[in-house]
């Protein structure tokens, strides 16, 4: 058991390292931050000074070494644009992103799973087909299209809600709905198929044959089994939460992590980009590990090795 945990941790660290290295190398190789930050007309002395200050004159592997050394000390670098510490900037933005992500995820799970279960129980009926139609629309329509349409309708035409930014209490509503719609759709489909598969299993018939009322059969026998793949999917979604913000935050000018990533990449503000990528990689890896453990917890068939 201990070996297993250590192995997974080692693999997790390796994955994160690979992501960070890849990000580092790609950013440094694709273009020179100097010209982007200073502008194309910058005088040569400024360029040289800039490069010296940020260590860009050194060979790549040496830059990488300094970077990793810095990480070990907890130093994530500084923004090239304003010289501020990267980590506090990023952390502040995380909270802003979570302000739309968490409600969206809650909606996704609440609405999506319920709709999926309902559709499965009413399989073949009009209600089922309608729900599935909406679900397909929900995840095929790209986020930015839905977001823009919502902005057009509710912000521009009706003027009920703000079109962007984080200025009023009603600002999060549209972004949350956009994200929530997508996740509901995905989870509805997924939950429905998981539930249908479970409902076809012989043990459901056994439960009915025992004399349980249908409600009890569904809640005590079907749902716990159908939940297993759904819970693990949600776990993975949680891991991808931070990364999924990019498009939505751009559409709604939501000042969160996604927006910061976009602007930093455009400005070649490498330290910020690396920090964000490191963060995203870590959350995804950790959530993957958590999901693996969760699976073992939920499904006793996977635990047999412990006995």
């Amino acid at each position: 058991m201990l070996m297993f945990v250590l192995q997974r941790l080692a693999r997790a660290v390796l994955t994160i390292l690979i992501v960070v290295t890849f990000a580092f190398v790609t950013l440094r190789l694709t273009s020179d931050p100097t010209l982007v930050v200073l502008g194309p007309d910058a005088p040569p002395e400024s360029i040289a000074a800039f490069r010296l200050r940020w260590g860009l004159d050194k060979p790549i592997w040496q830059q990488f070494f300094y970077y990793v050394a810095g990480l070990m000390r907890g130093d994530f670098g500084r923004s090239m644009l304003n010289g501020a510490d990267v980590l506090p900037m990023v952390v502040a933005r995380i909270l802003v992103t979570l302000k739309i992500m968490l409600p969206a995820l809650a909606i996704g799970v609440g609405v999506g799973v319920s709709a999926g279960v309902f559709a499965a129980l009413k399989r073949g009926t009009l209600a089922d087909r309608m729900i599935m139609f909406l679900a397909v629309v929900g995840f095929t329509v790209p986020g930015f299209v839905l977001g823009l349409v919502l902005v057009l309708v509710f912000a521009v035409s009706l003027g009920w809600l703000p079109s962007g930014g984080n200025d009023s209490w009603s600002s999060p509503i549209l972004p949350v709905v956009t994200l929530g719609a997508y996740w509901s759709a995905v989870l509805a489909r997924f939950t429905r198929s998981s539930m249908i598969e479970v409902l076809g299993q012989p043990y459901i018939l056994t439960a009915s044959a025992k004399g349980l009322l249908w409600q009890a059969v569904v809640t005590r026998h079907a749902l716990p089994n159908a939940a297993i793949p759904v819970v693990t999917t949600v776990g993975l979604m949680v891991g991808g939460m931070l990364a999924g913000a990019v498009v939505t935050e751009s559409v709604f000018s939501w000042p969160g992590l996604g927006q910061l990533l976009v602007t930093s990449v455009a400005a070649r503000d490498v330290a910020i980009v690396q920090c964000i990528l490191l963060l995203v990689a870590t959350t995804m890896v950790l959530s993957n590990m958590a999901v693996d453990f969760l699976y073992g917890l939920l499904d006793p068939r996977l635990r047999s090795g412990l006995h």
Partner: protein
Amino acid sequence: MTQAFGETGGGAANALTDGRPLVELRDLSVLFPRGPAVQGVDLTIMPGEAVGIVGESGSGKSVTWLAVLGLLAGDHRVGGRALLDGADLIGAPNTHLSQVRGGRIGLIFQDPASSLNPVRRVGEQIGEALRLHRGMSGPALRTEAKRLFDLVGIPDAGRRIDLYPHEFSGGQNQRVMIAMALAGQPELLVADEPTTALDVTIQAQILSLLEDLRRELNMALVLISHDLSVVGEVCDRISVMYAGRIVETAPTDRLFARPAHPYTRGLLDAAPSLAGDRRHLVPIRGAVPEPWNMPPGCAFAPRCLHARGDCGAAMPTLRDLEAGHRVRCPHADGSGRIAAPAETGELHHAAT
């Protein structure tokens, strides 16, 4: 390991208190959109009796009992009556049916491994039935669950009720299923192919267990199988089903000694025996008709070696040959087995 419960083996039904049947199926039919699965089934089960239902695929043997207990899903219509102690189960409200299921009529199925909820401990699953039908809870419930495990011959009950289904072997899982079915103290146990998925030595153990339990608990048993010899060992009386109808009913000894219906004879001849002689088997040519493609008249006529002109005219009725021996064939005379003609050339052609 099974405990010794006393003498097993064929023979006498238990003494009946007042001669009233426990379960009576009258003209039961089950209709699906694609066609009839069960038609005109008349069957009586007396308390404590062991009745075997034999049929191949498409015979409707399982659908009959699922319909009686209201467990069929999908679009279907059930006709006729299924009387339990005189009260009709067909169309009864769900609340009543849920009391009957497990409480008065228990049901066990073919594949024990997938018939138990994989994520809940078996003790909990048995406990559910105990709570539902006998209002038990707490330590009394656990004690009773252990007692049921002992009753069905699962050793080390105290530890094993906390295990999950995948931690048992196939035979043990079937014992768990039986324990669960017995939890509600039903008067009738319907066992649908309970041993088909098990190894033959384990099958023998489970059949022996069912026999012992029946006698000890004075419980009626309906044993459904495609295997005549399995049913023959355990049951007092056998009904043979074909294409949704009962084609022959007789006491076990008589069915094997003097089968009247050509299909029954065909089944007996087609089954390999332990005589050890190397010979060709005697098959029944053709295949079971689909519900939507039933031939006119007798459903077995196209495959019957003794079919005559009038067999396709009308569906024969179930008539009495002797006491307790009924057959759905106008030409059967109950005189004994007629050796099947050696038409080996024709015998292995595939059906239409």
